[in-house]
């Protein structure tokens, strides 16, 4: 310790200044990299858990589109929207089919990339795609998007994600601090504690609890199992 003190005292003030600056810069770079890493991790979670939303429906893009769409409603006759927010470089071909506002995203050659239905929503706007629905809240201070699907959900803000998927026992929040079980309880789709809920399987796989065995005949021949599986005793 004394040696370190002697060393620091022996340094010229300018050298000390540059050393401190250097340390601060390094720390800042590390922090930025770490933040980026964590952000990338969160994005990776989104990609890996929601393959059905890839690559067009990142909530940030959805928010951009909804916000822009709400700002300029298309006529009932439809609209071709070049380079719409959230779908940069693409074209949104908007048509009304009955009451539904169907949006087809086309590439530069006019080929269909994806399509969805836009809906007004009291919080802003919503996009229906497949079995899922993305709802963008445009009236809050910061962007918010939530996704509902029969099997998986998320809530997104630029700072964090809350995932409710079969990936975890309970909803979990993923932010720059890492993942933790969320206190969010707004959803009601989780089964009540203590109940034997619908079968979920992993860590060993699925099965329906069906009886696998059959009686042996007196003669001792092995009975086959009723499924495509194996001999069962």
């Amino acid at each position: 310790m004394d040696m370190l003190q002697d060393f620091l005292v022996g340094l010229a003030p300018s050298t000390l200044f540059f050393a401190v600056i250097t340390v601060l810069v390094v720390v800042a770079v590390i922090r930025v990299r770490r933040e980026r890493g964590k952000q990338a991790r969160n994005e990776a979670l989104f990609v890996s858990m929601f393959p059905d939303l890839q690559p067009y429906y990142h909530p940030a893009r959805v928010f951009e589109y909804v916000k822009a769409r709400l700002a300029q409603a298309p006529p009932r006759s439809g609209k071709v929207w070049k380079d719409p927010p959230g779908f940069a470089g693409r074209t949104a071909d908007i048509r009304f089919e009955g009451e539904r506002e169907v949006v087809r995203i086309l590439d530069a050659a006019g080929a269909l990339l994806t399509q969805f239905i836009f809906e007004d929503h009291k919080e802003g706007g919503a996009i229906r795609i497949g079995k899922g629905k993305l709802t963008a809240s445009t009236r809050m201070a910061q962007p918010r998007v939530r996704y509902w699907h029969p099997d998986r959900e998320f809530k997104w803000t630029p700072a964090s994600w809350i995932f409710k998927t079969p990936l975890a026992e309970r909803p979990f929040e993923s932010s720059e601090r890492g993942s933790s079980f969320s206190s969010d309880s707004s959803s009601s789709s989780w089964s009540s504690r203590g109940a034997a809920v619908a079968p979920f399987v992993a860590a060993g796989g699925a099965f329906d609890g069906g009886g696998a065995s059959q009686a042996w005949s007196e003669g001792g021949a092995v009975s086959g199992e009723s499924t495509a599986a194996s001999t069962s005793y």
Partner: protein
Amino acid sequence: MIAGHLVARPIPGLLPVRDSRATLRVLIASLAPGGAERIVVEWVGAELARGRSVELAVLHPRNHTLAAPAGLTLRIRERESPEEFMRTLAAEWRDGAASVSTHLVPDAFLSILWSAGVRTVPTIHNARDGWRNDPREWKPENVPMAIACADSVRVELLAAGCVVPVATVRHRPRVGAAAFDAGLRREIRAELGVGDSTFLVGAVGAIKRQKDYRRAIEVLARLVKRRDAALAILGGALDAEGLAELDRLVARAVALGVAARLRLPGFVPMIEPYLAACDAVVNVSRFEGLSIATQEALAAGLPVVAARVGGQGEISHAALTLLDAHAAAEEFAAHLATHRVRASLVAAPFARAPRIASAALAHRAPTGALIDTLFVTANLNAGGAQRSLANLAAALAGRHRMAIAVCGETTATQFADMLRGAAVEAFRPAPDADPIAAAESILAHAGERGARNVCFWNADPRVKLAVAKFATEGLRLLDVSPGAYAFAEMEEARGFAACIAYSGAYYYARLDALVLKYGAAAHPPCRRVELIPNGVALRPAREAAPGYPRFLVNGRIAPSKRIEAIVDAFRRVSAVHRDAQLHVVGAAEERHVGYAAALRARAAGLAVRFRGAAADLAPVDEPFTAALVLGTHQGSPNAVLEAMAASIPVIANDSGGTRELVVDGHTGWLLAEDAPSGALAAAMLEAISDPAECAERARRARELVRKAHGLDAMARKYLAILDAGSAPRHEKMDAWTSTSAPGAPRPSLRAPSPATAVP
């Protein structure tokens, strides 16, 4: 069509069913998706499907759970504390006769059951690093037996100082048809965003450190350098530690640039469609008990590349590649790269015995009327083995406390009546002939009755294997074997033996004594081998021959008795002696009705009388020129002995122990084992032509029976074996002189040397 009296059909209700199996009581930490939980649910589901009463208690509720099978009594802890829950269980279960099966429940909770007198049989589902119990603390009065999910785990338990018996039960998972459904494969791959040409690797199991999914990510990173590939982790995080591990594995995927190739569907409702979607499975666990995930993937026809840890080496399957536990990711990737994107889905299932763990719960304290020996037999049909058992039991009645467990249906009343008349208890141990149910009930019955011996007498080899595997050391096991036929049967049961992590070799090593009925040239090694030929009661001596050629066939109508050769021989005899008669006394079991009908057709026009089964031995008191006994895999044939005892000359083939009774030219006619009908006809004609010689051979044969094959001599020899190890209680019996041959060392469920212990 065949006359009804020639068909031996099962007789319902002939014997009472005394099923000593109790309600199956199981305690598990939770039903969170996992290998251990799946084992329990498959096991109790299989028992439920057979009508077994099951109570399942779950200590910790979860949101994502396996579905408990319908029909069981399910109790999941709710608001009470775990300790209160355990105390309630203890109060309710304290009067149960059977032990409670426990899974992943720590000793602190088990001790609440123990203090209430509830015995437990813990199953250890993981390698030592994953244990929740300290097996050194288990005492036999609380834990009569423990189960290890693999031999490697069993060895660890014993090495850790476990003093209670440990049996290995390897569960093989059931994989349904959805694992081979091409439509589901397409659907899941589309859902995951995986293209048709992408090689999809699955990794199955909850996200936790043990599974080392970061290493799986590294494998993926190496693999994508070789081919278009993706990795789907089929499992989720159960707790904060799991979430932390999730963060780490995703961060690793980002760092290695493969995040876009990672799929995390989490806990999926059915694994089979996902297995259908995959092209291979990787298992890089740091430690495993016996991986259900690996086994189900193999059963689904997927190649698996896995680390050789724990019980992985005990999985024998052509599609399994095991690598060193510390093998580099590159090595895993290289092996995965050798496989193709699957074009067809083909099952490769394991044989299974999901209910075998029930037999581990059969320990009982003596409560009922005590017995010395529980005999176990397949049936009481009209056969030689059954007759010798009935003869022995009647001879021992009053001298030895015993009961007879009859595992299957019986088609004749005579031996059941005989036993009833001798006040010998006979019962069915289970409602049907299922070997696992029978084994559990037999063990439980032996315990309740304080039996010292279980003696197999013409029993299903699967029953013998299952009983021997779970019998505790204090229970002596004896096998009375007719010889080669029984050994061949045991060999044929090797598939079942493998299913229950046992073998014929272990069985014979476990036996306290193997009793042979004749001096078989070859038999499995056993630490004690005894020779006890059958004995029969002497009939009155008779000199008079019949007034015309008259031959007897006395026994079951079955192909093994070669009665068609006898009919053919009789045709030749009839050509010479038109007044000759052939009397066939016996019936065919239902499976041999076709054979019996063919025989009747073959005998058309001949003086062959098919008399049906006889209720007693009265036919041998009739005058006959000779009794004809052909057979395969004979032991010490009662049909021969009974004819000899009744002064009927015997013409027999040289099978098994027949040559010890029939000495050609001295006590009868002994033909080659595969004697053709011509040779048999020649012997029959010789017997007809020389009544004096016939009578002399019959006299010598009867004398042989009197000297060496009496009932009492047989009974004394058996009694000596059955009473071995106990204080002599039969002073009038001669001391038994052993002709034991040295055999294999005695195996033990509690062997001090794990390496040599029997699972």
